[in-house]
């Protein structure tokens, strides 16, 4: 049994009017512009990595609809636990482009103080939680926030994003099961891009879909075309409303494809047929949504072009600004391990500062190989 795939914008340019959400023009235009910005952000970041200016990148090109469709369906008070492939969640919610580049550079302007690898953004001001590398750990955490909000009687919803491979991880199971039991207001958003690095979906699980897994936890699972921003919006909005009503979690599977490598260290040619990439290029979520807006007369071709232009300019400026910031100070290494620095860390810091009077350590780190 495979769930039906919800689609609003057909690949053949048809539109399913019954499911077409009633969104303000402003919102629709902002959605497209954010998707374009995500793509520009991504392309620049990959270039910065290729030219050795940043150490690592995880591109999300091809998956912009999942990110922006979902983000647009939430309110600012809602909380978001993103995976590493969802800068769009940050950008829609209001994080500055420069903040993201600061993270990629690990500089003194980085909100995470240069402590995490690139793409591990964090933004408390917009209720977006610090990204972790270990897969699926954010799911039970998201459920915990949702449970706390219920206890506090705050009408918020928590969304957490992850990939298809992540559904195999133990914390997927544990998070979903807790959510079911406590009817926690959570939206589980799985961007099923059909590969987990080199492992295809059918080696990941024998289940017919991701959505069907929700049955194991007693809540609904839905499948949407993840390259159709309106379908993603629709599904996430429904799920969020359900959650806000007190009816518990939903698992949303957004079926999609990553157009690039898993990360800047990956070579998809080793495991994925090139032809497939060509095919999925035709389903590019930005193009599809752009065509819809222009066809509807909500935006002209020229406006779309200038959105691209603006995106390229904004990302170039932000990256340049980030590059100018110095690295974080040595002292910052020892901050935030605890609320207050305990004596043993103070001692280690003092020793380090003393040692550095004699000369500084040379950075001999190699480029990240994965």
């Amino acid at each position, binding site marked *: 049994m495979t769930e039906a795939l919800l689609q609003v914008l057909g690949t053949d340019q048809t539109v399913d009017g019954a499911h077409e959400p009633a969104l303000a023009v402003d919102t629709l235009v902002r959605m497209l512009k954010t998707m374009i910005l995500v793509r520009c952000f991504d392309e620049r970041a990959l270039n910065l990595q290729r030219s050795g200016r940043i150490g690592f990148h995880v591109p999300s090109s091809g998956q912009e609809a999942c990110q922006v469709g979902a983000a647009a369906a939430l309110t600012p008070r809602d*909380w978001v636990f993103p995976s590493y492939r969802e800068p769009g969640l940050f950008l829609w919610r209001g994080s500055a482009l420069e903040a993201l580049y600061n993270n990629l550079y690990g500089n003194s302007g*980085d*909100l*995470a*103080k240069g*402590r*995490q690898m690139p793409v*591990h953004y*964090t*933004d*408390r001001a917009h209720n977006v*939680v*610090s990204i*972790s590398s*270990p897969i699926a*750990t954010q*799911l*039970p*955490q*998201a*459920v*915990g*926030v*949702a*449970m*706390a*909000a219920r*206890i*506090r009687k705050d009408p918020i919803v928590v969304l957490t994003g992850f990939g298809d491979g992540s559904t195999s991880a*133990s*914390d997927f*199971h*544990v*998070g979903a*099961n*807790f959510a079911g*039991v*406590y009817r926690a207001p959570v939206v589980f958003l799985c961007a099923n891009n059909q590969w987990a690095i080199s492992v295809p979906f059918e080696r990941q699980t024998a289940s017919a879909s991701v959505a069907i897994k929700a049955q194991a936890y007693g809540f609904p699972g839905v499948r949407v075309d993840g390259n159709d921003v309106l379908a993603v919006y629709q599904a996430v909005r429904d799920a969020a409303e359900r959650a806000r009503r007190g009816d518990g979690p939903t698992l949303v599977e957004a079926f999609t494809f990553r157009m690039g490598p898993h990360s800047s260290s990956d070579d998809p040619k080793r495991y994925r047929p090139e032809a497939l990439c060509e095919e999925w290029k035709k389903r590019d979520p930005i193009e599809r949504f752009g065509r819809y807006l222009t066809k509807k007369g909500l935006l002209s071709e020229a406006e779309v072009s200038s959105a691209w232009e603006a995106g390229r300019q904004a990302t170039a400026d932000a990256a340049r600004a980030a590059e100018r910031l110095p690295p974080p100070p040595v002292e910052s290494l020892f*901050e*935030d*391990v*605890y*609320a*207050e620095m*305990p*004596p*043993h860390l103070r001692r280690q810091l003092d020793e380090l500062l003393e040692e550095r009077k004699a000369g500084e350590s040379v950075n001999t780190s190699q480029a990240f190989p994965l």
Partner: protein
Amino acid sequence: MAILTVLQAVNAALKQEMRRDDRVVVLGEDVGKNGGVFRATEGLYDEFGSDRVLDTPLAESGIIGTAIGMALYGLRPVPEIQFLDFIYPAFDQIVNELAKFRYRSGGQYPAPVVIRSPYGGGIRGGHYHSQSSEAYFAHTPGLKVVIPSTPYDAKGLLASAIRDEDPVLFLEPKRIYRTVKAEVPDTEYTVPIGVARIAREGRSCSIFCYGAMVHVALEAAEKAKEKGTEVEVVDLRSLVPLDEEAVLASVRKTGRAVVLYEAPRTGGFGAEISALIAERALEYLEAPIVRVAGFDTPFPYTLEHVYMPDARRVLAAVDRVMNF
């Protein structure tokens, strides 16, 4: 003042803090209606209801993972792991997530969770109801590790842990849950984290220990006195942060050190005490630093009394450092 067991003191601290601060919630397997398999959470469900005392599904990473989320949102969750032996499914959530949240988010997302768990041997629990794996956690920056050895400290340290802004692993030596009793104030008080306690003063030799082993050390000290050896027993109380000054001061005074712990010897937390002394008080030592610990085997069942350090073995170590 009432005479309380360690277990009752834990229960009293939980009640006190839950009354004091409505952000405090308790969660775990069987902690609700059943009051916990050791009854540490007895009465909480009735008093605070199902919103603040949550029976969870059987998944430790879910208990800790959701507790992290609750803490991020502003609550003060106090999850219970039924036995420390069962904490490992949550190990990733603890060492990769809980311990690093504040740091990795640049201080934006602190996660003040207090994990309570009974630990240690001496109750005929075999492999999986006896482990002392405090060393794993003490080697994990970002966590605090606190271990009481008396009812007074159990209540006071747990209260401090719950008020702390950082994640704390609060380990309860289950062997002395019911056997050690003492007067405990009914009123509110806290015992600061990071300060060792001199459980017994002496000038001949120091024993560094924590948890149930404090009582073994005290028994050995009593016996050593018969031979004229004045043993100082230092109860570390918190492994992280460690009261390094107390350790160094004691060894500078006595010149002789025995390190006592029930975990497997190799790589146990006691090795850190030896290393600390060997680096910063070596010149005061008049004898090698002797460790008395569990053997490097899994925890056994029938022979647990042979496995676990007892006063006899500690006394032999005291003799060794005294007669060097």
